[in-house]
């Protein structure tokens, strides 16, 4: 079989102007929050190098700001500061060591910013406040437009001096160029506003200036938004027209594509598992038909087969795989060598990548503990031990995988017949099915690493001691906790009772949520699909508050509306009384207090389903903690939290053995 195995297109080299890429897999630009003091760090170099080592065809760094007026988030790389140069060289040297080209994305975020860090007015085409930052920008004057253009040229030249093989102009997501292109934000009446040719003037001026600055032996790309998904914004027709102008300039080597506006419709840029893969491919398809330049397509490419198909169908010439390579830096190499099933596929859960970006935290990954930590060396491996892991949820599996990969002999006991722990339960809701991949990926890797997986086996202290362990890792998980206000009412149940099939609520159901995340909303969705009349009540100010950071809030609300799910906030349950007759025989009279005002109300319903904090399953810890061998506890049996905590702790304990 030829190199690339099953993939005829994915591993075919391509020319991007003067630069040859060896395959079609692009690690497209994305924020990492790895910068410190406006400068790129060692972590940047290690992060990109890991993806280069893993076979990526082309790496495009996160944006570098071109002007001092542009500082929308704290950890932005200040390309306008000459002090970035050593950091640039560190990054490009690290990537070039793997014979992979790397481009720098340069940008001015324009009005999609605030003055919080810069203490300068925000620059934009017109005084139209951004929906996220909500700061009225200063409409740039003509001499300031010239300054913007000059800033792009200066920073592009600096990037080339820093060893980059090309420049990508960010003109989508969040960009002053996008702001000029879009009728929603460009209200100018001068030569930079009005008809599309005028709105594109800044872009074409920048293209000219940057090409002059970098010469002809470096690549130049332009990233365009194909549909802003906002009222009065840029749509596909305008985008194609702009792409043609870019092509006609004769000074650009490729076009990258995107969808949405970062500060308005981000949930469609970095779509979660609620949005089908390939959802944005109408954009590169349309652009590709209109231009001669190679076009990059993006949008939740999780596995190489999808990417191959997009190439084969002519939707694009290259495929941006960002989260796929965040989750597994070796995505491309595994595909190329015929080991696609070993790829640790992205879940599109957005919890530790996208979810941390908006909170000004470094980029990580729910299932890749090393993502974001590539520059920090692991502790030296100790002598090989016999390791017993108890519990086959994500924490236990991660501990077992890491320990086995580091040369320890590992046996894992799982009480149930199947591995995956609560992930198996959560993923039974159809819209959460892709979450199951975390278990699949871990199980595949555990088998490959030679972990002795013993399902259907309860590990009591004697069984554990019989293994003569050098170390024991307890990952025994958590169990639902009966709330004080529920009494012994049989119709007040936990979401796990529903998802694990022990009860099947019918009729009117109130879902009580104190977690603010998927457990309540996904269960509510499932119950509504089964025909229940569902209301979610929460003590928070909004239902599913943490869905906001994973970009699931919009899709949740659309679905909730379609399924007739009611949402009530600021309510705390105070009691659950039996209902004898009436509309809900055998049902629940749920007393609720509106906590801001202290007023009481009652919901009469057939069932109450609770998404509440759980209790640790820590019986084994109590029995074993004073053993002669080391005993560690990780994940929910230490403190019930989300999957990432279990994975991180499993990895940390295993590398510390």
């Amino acid at each position, binding site marked *: 079989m030829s190199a690339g195995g099953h993939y005829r297109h994915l591993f075919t080299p391509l020319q991007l102007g003067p630069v040859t890429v060896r395959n079609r897999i692009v690690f497209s630009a994305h924020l990492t929050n790895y910068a410190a003091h406006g400068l790129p760090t060692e972590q940047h170099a290690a992060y990109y190098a890991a993806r280069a080592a893993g076979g990526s065809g082309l790496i495009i760094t996160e944006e570098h700001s071109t002007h*001092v*007026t542009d500082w929308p*988030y*704290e950890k932005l790389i200040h390309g306008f500061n000459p002090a970035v140069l050593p950091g640039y060289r560190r990054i490009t040297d690290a990537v070039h060591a793997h014979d992979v080209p790397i481009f720098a994305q340069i940008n001015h975020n324009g009005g999609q910013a605030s*003055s*919080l*860090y810069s*203490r*300068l*007015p*925000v620059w934009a085409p017109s*005084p139209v*406040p951004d*929906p996220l930052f*909500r*700061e*009225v*920008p*200063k*409409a740039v*004057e003509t001499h300031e437009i010239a300054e913007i253009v000059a800033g792009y040229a200066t920073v592009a030249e600096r990037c080339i001096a820093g060893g980059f093989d090309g420049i990508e102009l960010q003109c989508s997501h969040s960009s002053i160029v996008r702001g000029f292109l879009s009728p929603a934000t460009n209200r100018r009446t001068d030569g930079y506003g009005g008809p599309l040719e005028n709105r594109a003037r800044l872009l074409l001026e920048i293209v000219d200036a940057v090409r002059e600055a970098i010469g002809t032996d470096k690549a130049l790309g332009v990233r365009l938004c194909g549909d802003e998904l906002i009222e009065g914004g840029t749509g596909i027709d305008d985008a194609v027209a702009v792409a043609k102008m870019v092509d006609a300039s004769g000074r650009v080597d490729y076009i990258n594509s995107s969808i949405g506006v970062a500060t308005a419709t981000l949930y469609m840029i970095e779509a979660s598992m609620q949005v089908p893969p390939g959802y944005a491919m109408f954009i590169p398809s349309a652009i590709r038909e209109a231009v001669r330049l190679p076009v990059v397509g993006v949008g939740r490419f999780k596995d190489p087969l999808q990417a191959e198909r997009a190439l084969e169908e002519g939707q694009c010439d290259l495929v941006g795989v960002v989260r796929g390579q965040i989750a597994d830096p070796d995505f491309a190499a595994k595909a190329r060598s015929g080991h696609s099933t070993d790829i640790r596929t992205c879940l599109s859960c957005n919890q530790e990548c996208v979810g*941390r970006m908006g*909170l*000004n*935290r470094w980029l990580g990954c729910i299932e890749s503990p090393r993502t974001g930590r590539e520059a920090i060396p692991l502790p030296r491996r100790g002598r090989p031990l016999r390791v017993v892991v108890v519990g086959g949820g994500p924490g236990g599996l991660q501990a077992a995988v890491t320990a086995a990969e580091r040369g320890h002999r590992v046996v894992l006991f799982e009480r149930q017949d199947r591995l995956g722990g609560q992930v198996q339960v959560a993923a039974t809701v159809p819209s959460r099915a892709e979450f199951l991949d975390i278990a699949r990926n871990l199980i595949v890797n555990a088998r490959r690493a030679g972990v002795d997986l013993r399902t259907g086996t309860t590990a009591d202290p004697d069984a554990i001691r019989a293994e003569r362990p050098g170390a024991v890792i307890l990952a025994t998980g958590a169990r639902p906790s009966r709330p004080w206000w529920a009494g012994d009412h049989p119709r007040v149940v936990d979401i796990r009772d529903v998802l694990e099939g022990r009860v099947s609520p019918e009729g009117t159901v109130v879902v009580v949520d*104190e*977690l*603010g995340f998927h457990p309540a909303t996904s269960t509510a969705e499932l119950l509504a699909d089964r025909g229940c009349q569902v209301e979610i009540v929460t*003590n928070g*100010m*909004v239902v599913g508050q*943490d869905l906001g950071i994973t970009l699931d*809030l*919009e899709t949740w*609300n*659309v679905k909730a*509306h*379609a399924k007739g799910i009611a949402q009530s906030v600021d309510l705390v349950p105070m009691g659950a009384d039996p209902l004898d007759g009436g509309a809900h025989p055998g049902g629940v009279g749920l007393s609720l207090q509106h906590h*801001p*005002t202290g007023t009481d109300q009652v919901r009469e319903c057939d069932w109450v389903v609770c998404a509440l*904090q*759980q*209790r*640790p399953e820590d019986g084994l810890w109590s029995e074993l903690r004073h053993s002669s061998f080391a005993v560690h506890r990780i994940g929910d049996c*230490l*403190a*019930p*939290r989300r999957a990432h*905590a279990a994975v*991180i*702790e499993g990895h*940390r304990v295993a590398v510390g053995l």
Partner: protein
Amino acid sequence: MASLVDTVTIVGRTAPSRVVFGPHETNLGDGRAIGSRHAAYYRARAIGGCGIIVTETASVHPSDWPYERAPLAADCGPGWAEVAAGCRPAGALVLAGLGHAGGQGSSAYSQSALWAPSRVADAINREMPMEMEPEEIDQLVAGFTGAARLAVEAGLDGVEIDIGPISLLRQFHSGLTNLRTDAYGIDKLRLTLEVVAAVRHQVGPDHVVSVRLCCDELAPWAGVTPDQAVDQVAALAPQVDMVVVVRGGPFSVSAYRPDGHAPATFNADLCRRMREAAGGRAAFVLQGSVIDPGAAQAALDDGTADLVEMTRAQIADPRLVTRVRTGAAHRIRPCILCNQACRVRDNRNPLVSCVGEPRSGHETIEPDPEGTDPSAGEALVVGGGVAGLECARVLAGRGHRVRLVERGSRLGGAARAASVGPGRERMAELTGWLETECRALGVEIALDTEVGPTDLDAAADRGAVVVIATGSRPLPFDPPVDRTITVVDGLGLLAGDPGRLPDGPVVVHDPVGGPVGVGVAEWLAGQGRQVAIVTADPIAGTQLALTGDLADANTRLQRAGVTRELRAILRGAKGGRALLDDVWTGERREIDCTVIVDCSHRLPEESLYLSRPGTPRAGDCVAPRTLLEAVLEGRRRALEIGGAMGGGIR
């Protein structure tokens, strides 16, 4: 009777005044260290006469990393020494704030389970902590003593142990969070007493040991109540030198340092009661929105406290104590309790600052506006809002002859207009102070006077420098309305006479989510109007999260009978009905409406500028923003005129 500016001696260490600068988040550190920017920040307050400075609370153990720039005691030794060196010449005592946020922290940075007395998830972070076992309790006590040792080795005068609204020790005190059945659950004060004893043993009798003690969690069903706190104080006071009486707990974190909606000096009764309970043991410090030196003095006079913490007041004016001492209390730049720039417990890590004094927290970055320009001349400032007033104030202070011209009949501009409504009144104190300062500095003020391009030319011909600060104008209201509907501008309404508003249901259109829309809605509801507030957000007043007023504001709206129309886009109004679309589903709904009060973002009033482009300008006429930007730009333009501003800053 002691005066606020008298010295006070604690364990043989003498503070130059009885005014305390309390610990607060600053984000000034580099990594988790106390740094040079901290030192400059604290030093400015020491020079200004502050008696005792408590540095930003440092985590005593690596298990605690509550916000990204939270200092870690182990990293703070050199920084503490730098702070001590900077403050010592002025005489201020410096204490190291030491704490552990426990279950109210964050695992986002440590990537480890939070520590807490019991498995109770915090109401705000919703994160289930691990229950501390004896090993962790030992580590915590060792953490406090190790941190205290570092602090005194760095030359500090002592330490302050955080038992306030965000603290692990308070979590042990409270029935809300301590459900333990061991000795630390039976005696909820036990851990604190162990920590205090260990710290005292570590630092010895000649260093200050202070506690910042929550005496009311405002959750009487299970939380610490003032009655319980009396007993806690009686037990603790003999073991410590100073007690700062504070309030707030897991359900009321923002009650600790609330904005202007809470009355000033709100802890006075609580503090007095605790001081009495201590029976003369330990010095008691009154905390809680103390911004007026008169009120502070009264608290000393009536036995409420021995010292007074005036943190935000000294963020607003670092020289507060000196001004009191020199009989110039009327010249203190007022804290308006807005919390807009000084409350920086925020994921974005903003540096602490002040809307009225943007140099605060930026002492090493922004130039000092005081001083004299060698070639002072004549200046014309157009516009008597905050930007123009600040510009005129700084220019006059630097020796220029300044004429300030205002089109309207009073000064203060948008800020004065926005100071209408409950809890908003203090905004006017800043504009009032700017006006008073300008008059005292001899600024010639002309009201009711229009300035046109020819006036600018005439001024230029005379050799005068000109600064344009003409403020903002309303955004034209875009959605279609018919003749049954009256549309008024929110700020214009506040500036004018509400009596002219037509009868009928009012719809407050608030795409901003800041204090103005909510304030207008409250204000109109307070006049008996039927009010709905329309926002595209899932919560009303979302931006108030930054000032700590979000939950309270929503409760006030509810109590005032204001209907919150959430996730809604105002599409227009006709026939007495406003048309709203859901932002996500597009579902249309209608509500009663005869008046729309538009609280949208505004546009720059730039016609004068556009007639003479390139003229220096400041504030809203560049882009309508907040007080801070107006003050900052007014000041920068003034400093640029005298050449005192470095180049490169716009």
